[in-house]
């Protein structure tokens, strides 16, 4: 296994409009990943066809089970030393992987690294829809899966994403990581771009989403109490 090999896992559910652009942003990395795994999460559109049109992409199909399950499937097939994720509608800056590898080499006491992110309204949207959004213009720390670079073994030590959660699965994973004492750095550069569009995943059961958040916060409070 080469020292700086990177696998990228891309969960994709009905991602036809944006997947190609996301994959190109991965392929344009100054440190090109060694493995790009697109997990087609039960899409009913041409997501699989688009992924398959890229020679560099390894396509995995699964019945629709959500982003957490799709990422977990991707992780289970990843073989590189380092692991990264990118949602199918988001983008990376070309230097993202290279800068993060440098960071991890410079700070060996850090188990993973994040970047800043900036948001953008998808350019194809009509002006009437663009005007609906008032985005935060300043780059913000991106404590989200799409900006993480981590050693695969470290990720697996923390554990897979909780597939029972409809929302907040990355928050729950980060809390586990913090509980175990893992440390993460944040590169102070906007190297990830989150696309805002009118077709972001709509979760139909808002009550369940709220319950997931509350369960995660309650677990965090319990951990903080037991740590004292």
């Amino acid at each position, binding site marked *: 296994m080469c020292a700086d090999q990177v696998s990228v896992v891309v969960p994709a559910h009905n991602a036809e409009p944006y997947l190609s652009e996301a994959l190109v942003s991965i392929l344009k990395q100054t440190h090109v990943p060694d493995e790009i795994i697109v997990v087609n999460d039960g899409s009913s559109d041409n997501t699989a066809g688009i992924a398959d049109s890229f020679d560099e992409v390894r396509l995995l199909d699964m019945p629709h089970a959500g982003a957490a399950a799709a990422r977990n499937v991707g992780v289970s097939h990843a073989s590189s030393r380092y692991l990264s994720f990118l949602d199918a509608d988001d983008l990376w800056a070309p230097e993202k992987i290279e800068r993060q590898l440098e960071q991890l080499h410079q700070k060996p006491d850090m188990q993973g690294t994040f970047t800043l992110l900036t948001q953008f309204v998808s350019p194809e949207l009509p002006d009437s829809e663009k*005007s*609906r*959004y008032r985005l935060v213009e300043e780059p913000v*720390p991106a404590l*989200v899966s799409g900006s993480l670079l981590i050693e695969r073994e470290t990720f697996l030590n923390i554990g897979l994403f909780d597939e029972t959660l409809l*929302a907040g699965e990355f*928050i729950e994973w980060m809390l586990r990581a913090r509980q175990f004492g893992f440390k993460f750095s944040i590169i102070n550069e906007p190297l990830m771009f989150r696309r805002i569009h009118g077709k972001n995943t709509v979760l139909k059961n*808002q009550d369940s*989403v709220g*319950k997931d958040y509350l369960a995660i916060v309650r677990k965090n409070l319990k951990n903080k109490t037991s740590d004292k």
Partner: protein
Amino acid sequence: MIFQVNAPRVVHETLDGETIIIDTENGFYYTAHGHASAIWRALSEGHSPELIRSAYQREGKQLPQPVLDDFVRQLGDANLIIPAGQLLSQSTWKAPADGADQLKTLEFECHEDMQGLIELDPIHEIDASQGWPFQTDETS
């Protein structure tokens, strides 16, 4: 005046006397215990501060007006509750009988340790009717 929880931005639950309130927009979460928890539940069910204070008096307890006003103000300043447009509850409310007879403070704590995680979680992308992350006034 009566209030309602600022949903769907704010989610909350009470278990074993501990209330957790999450502001999903800014990532802060809050905890309330004891009487603060009970009063939060009463407010969230549409009981007015006046009714709540009267309920405490019926139990022989003193809930000073400034203490209750300050608690309600904190909840409002944090955007956890908003004025309700109509009466939500006509049921009576019974104040907890336990604890001190004189309520000097209402324990209510803000936590920031998950702020960066909750604020950017993709949950904020889910309400297609509202837009994300913020909708301008022109279309609201």
